[in-house]
């Protein structure tokens, strides 16, 4: 269409000229392969987890006496692998943790999302971020030195320094920032139009928050709680330090008793208190408990994801 005026006649640009050169194309191919391989490592990791857990767990189930799985307590050195004992311990710790973390986490989330001004948000939010950065071993130590003596010891003076309640409270502190941050995201995702509509009808802030925003974000809030629960169940170091019962434990549902969770049973098998190499079944039993833990947390995470997706679909 264009007519050339200048003296050297322009070479018309062909589509072929836009094609990238062979070297660049080769480079593209190499990069794509490398990047896809990196993405595929995650599948390799999952496969390795499942294979290593399932293989050893099957070996354990094959060799263990079925009655040992329902013994009076968890004493691997005496071949007593009572699964109800460690599941009960885990449930007690998680229940205490949720009792602490639900009000603290949700309260913080609602305050930050609905009440705090931008300035106070900037000051208050880092509290949760610093709390989230504290490693769980440190909270385990805190559970033993402060929570157990100053809090649990005051509620029930004849309790041993090692008890499930102290561990549970510390786990609750650990998961509070997680619950707060996921719940706050959910509250934040609620469109402002809903709040404005509520204010427009004359509702005050409290009514707007609790009757409009929270119900609208309820899926995300439930997801936050389930995620917190899942983290509490998998939490290891706090219980290993503060719940006591390093060698084994009898079945208990009393939070003031020392007890054993699934995770604590695993660390105590792995450290000196129960030589892994000693009892033949102790080593594979680790993997059986691990598989159980893996299964429980996986199911909880799936449920939580499903709830989060519901929030995303609505807004």
């Amino acid at each position, binding site marked *: 269409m264009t007519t050339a005026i200048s003296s050297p006649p322009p070479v018309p640009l062909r589509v072929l000229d836009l094609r*990238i050169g062979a070297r660049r194309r080769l*480079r*593209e191919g190499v*990069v794509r392969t*490398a*990047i896809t391989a*990196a*993405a595929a490592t*995650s*599948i390799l*990791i999952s496969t*390795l*987890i499942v294979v*290593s*857990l399932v293989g050893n767990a099957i070996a354990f189930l094959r060799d263990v006496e079925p009655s040992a799985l329902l013994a009076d307590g968890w004493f691997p050195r005496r071949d007593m692998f009572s699964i109800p004992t460690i599941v009960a311990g885990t449930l007690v710790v998680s229940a205490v943790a949720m009792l602490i973390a639900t009000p*603290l986490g949700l*309260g*913080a989330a609602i*305050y930050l999302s609905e009440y705090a001004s931008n300035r106070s948000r900037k000051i208050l939010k880092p509290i*949760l971020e*610093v*709390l989230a*950065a*504290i*490693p769980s*071993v*440190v909270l385990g*130590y*805190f559970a033993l*030195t402060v929570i157990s003596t100053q809090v649990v010891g005051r509620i029930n003076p004849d309790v041993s320094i090692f008890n499930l309640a102290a561990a549970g409270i510390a786990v609750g502190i650990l998961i*509070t920032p997680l619950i707060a941050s996921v719940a706050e995201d959910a509250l934040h995702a609620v469109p402002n139009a809903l709040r404005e509509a*509520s204010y427009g*009808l*004359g*509702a005050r*802030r*409290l*009514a*707007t928050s*609790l*009757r*409009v925003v929270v119900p609208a974000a309820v899926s995300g809030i439930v997801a936050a709680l389930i*995620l917190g629960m899942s*983290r509490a169940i*998998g939490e*290891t*170091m706090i219980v*290993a*330090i503060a719940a006591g019962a390093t060698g084994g434990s009898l079945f208990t549902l009393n939070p003031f008793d020392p007890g054993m969770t699934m995770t604590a049973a695993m660390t105590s098998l792995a*450290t*000196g208190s129960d030589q892994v190499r000693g009892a033949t079944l102790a080593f594979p039993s*680790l*993997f059986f408990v*691990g598989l159980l*833990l*893996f299964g429980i947390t*996986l199911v909880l*995470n*799936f449920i939580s*994801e499903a709830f989060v997706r519901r929030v995303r679909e609505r807004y």
Partner: protein
Amino acid sequence: MAGAIQAPQAVRAPSPTSAAVEAALRAGRRDWAGLVAATLLLLTLLTSLAILFVLLADVFGRALPVFAERGFDILTTPLSARPTQAGVAQGLFGSIVLTIFVVVLALPIGILAAVYLEEYAGDNAFARFVNTNIRNLAGVPAIVYGLLGLAVFVTALGAGRSLLAGGLTLAILVLPIVVITTAEALRAVPLTIREAAFGVGATRSEVVTSHVLPYALPGILTGTVLTLARAFGETAPLIMVGAITGVFRTAPGSILESLEGPFTALPTIVFAWSREVKDEFRALTAAAIIVLLVVILTVNAAAVLLRNRYDRRW
């Protein structure tokens, strides 16, 4: 689906909203209930603050005498059964080597995987599968990764209870978190930036290396630095792969040899000492915690500064 009009909630007879509005309109002039509620909500946050304060004050108070008495001597002395001589030198060395493993292995693989998911994959079945898989991996308890390390690296691959096995395990543990945070940073780069680069004839990899990654770098760095801080405090997987919780002597030798020998890490020492019966160990544990917290909180602060400095709204 997106265009579907949702039935207004108010259609259901006495909706909670209208009830709330009615109650609010009937209430007295001053909103006492609202004030109490606001105070209670603020109180939950302040409780967290108080817990944090008590924790730091308690640990600091216990650790102070140790530092006053021994200076920073505990940073350079090895483990010992005698609390007056024990130090965290081996743990510090172990933790640094483990962090290097994470940096060298998990960061590049994680960033590449995120680039695949965000820049290359589009919406195919494989990418969806990888995505779900990574989200699930991020929720797997740390101790389960320890079991993976124990079964695969320690036993099957014959690395033994060593820094090598521990480092590989930690790298695998943080990989999903690196992918998720990096993908988030990549997603924040606007599409127009990519379109501009494609428009002048750049190939996909050129778009990524010349445009997307530089713009996403601050976000990626913040995320990965926070991940490193988390890895630094991770204990359970190291215990599963056999980090020493007792006392051991580091044999003099090259760094390479020390990768295969017995090892410990800073948080593992905190765990081991907090279970010691002797009272002096309580103070010593607090001192080790201070060392651990100084590292972790410094790294966190650096990440936050980085975020504030380079935070960019498109």
